[in-house]
């Protein structure tokens, strides 16, 4: 047994233990924190599995953003409102535990039996990649070969925002309990961290065509910046979605739709990206849209405005 496998086993055991704790634990607040740590361990697992793209996304979106959203929602619904973590009847829980236990065994055994086939889609991607002008195979799949998935994924994000606007009705935007910006640490955080976040975002976006990174990771960082500005009160949530907000929210999907549908008019199959310019256009639009959408979802607002205005 190598050191690597020891590391894997420690990570694996920690993942299982944490997940059990998260779903059955006693204090919701603590378990949200544990869930964020679970996300960090998943990110470490991605690193171990050789997928830095996913480690980036998991850390930023899976753990960071989801965790921040959970914490905000937890705060909105008041203190620990949980009466008891699980259903009272232990018999039911036992039956469910036995059933899910056998589910685990079946899935685990089935998955262990899988042998990689020699001509998988992944190999086809690596073969076809040079024709796209992209150096990062994952970006190639996301934007070129399976662009439809990514386009519809942008629609999912848009629907999440529209849905949140719908269910929140005319309620005032989520109260954001701001951290006092006059405290020296928070103030300097804003002036130092915000520009760095922007720099990291642009770096990730540009790196994404050839190295790990890309629109999703960049947007997560940018969202982080937005969240920071909401938390410190630099951006304030509003109850009205202005024209610019609406335009920016649909920009990612719109860029995809225009390029994807436009390909049909110039004689290509739909969803064909006809040049590197299309990749950069779509990635930039996606990054801005996702970041704004996520920040709005975080603030549960329809729009944002600057502090002074």
């Amino acid at each position, binding site marked *: 047994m190598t050191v690597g496998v020891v590391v894997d086993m420690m990570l694996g055991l920690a993942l299982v233990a944490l997940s059990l704790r998260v779903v059955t634990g006693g204090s919701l607040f603590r378990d949200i924190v544990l869930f964020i740590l679970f996300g960090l361990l998943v990110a470490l697992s991605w690193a171990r599995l050789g997928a830095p793209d*996913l480690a980036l996304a998991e850390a930023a979106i899976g753990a960071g953003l989801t965790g921040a959203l959970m914490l905000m929602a937890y705060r909105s619904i008041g203190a620990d409102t949980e009466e008891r973590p699980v259903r009272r009847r232990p018999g039911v829980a036992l039956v469910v535990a036995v059933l899910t236990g056998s589910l685990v065994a079946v*899935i685990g055994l089935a998955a262990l039996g899988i042998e990689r086939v020699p001509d998988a889609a992944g190999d086809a991607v690596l073969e076809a990649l040079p024709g796209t002008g992209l150096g990062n195979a994952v970006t190639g799949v996301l934007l070129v070969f399976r662009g439809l998935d990514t386009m519809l994924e942008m629609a999912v994000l848009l629907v999440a925002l529209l849905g949140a606007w719908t269910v929140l009705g005319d309620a005032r935007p989520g109260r954001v309990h701001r951290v006092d910006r006059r405290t020296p640490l928070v103030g300097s955080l804003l002036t130092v961290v915000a520009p760095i976040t922007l720099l990291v975002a642009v770096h990730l976006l540009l790196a994404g065509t050839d190295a790990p990174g890309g629109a999703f990771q960049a947007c997560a960082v940018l969202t982080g910046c937005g969240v920071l500005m909401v938390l410190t009160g630099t951006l304030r949530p509003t109850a009205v979605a202005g024209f610019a907000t609406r335009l920016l929210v649909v920009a990612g999907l719109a860029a995809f739709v225009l390029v994807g549908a436009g390909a049909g008019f110039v004689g290509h199959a739909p969803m064909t990206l006809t040049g590197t310019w299309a990749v950069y256009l779509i990635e930039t639009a996606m990054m801005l849209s996702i970041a704004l959408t996520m920040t709005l979802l975080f603030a549960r607002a329809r729009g944002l405005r600057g502090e002074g205005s």
Partner: protein
Amino acid sequence: MSTEVVYVLAASAVFGAGVYGLIVANHLMRKLLALNVMSSAVFVTMLTVAGTTPEGPDPVAQALVLTGIVIAVAATAFALALLVRLVQETGLVSLRAKDDDGA
């Protein structure tokens, strides 16, 4: 025992924990935590069973997981908005309080 085997086994156990939590948990937010735990398990399974190419894990599987992560956070954000509104309207954090089939 190889790296893949460890993660496949861990992921199926985590998936089971998520299903268990989703069914027995009371608090809606804990159910959402369970769903997110489940989706992480699905993603890890997806990457590990897809195997590796000479240039690292299967790029298609990586792309699918990336798409899946974004969809998961979008769905979670929407579910949390619904949850917050539900709590504002009813003051209840679980669906179990009363059966509204006939109401």
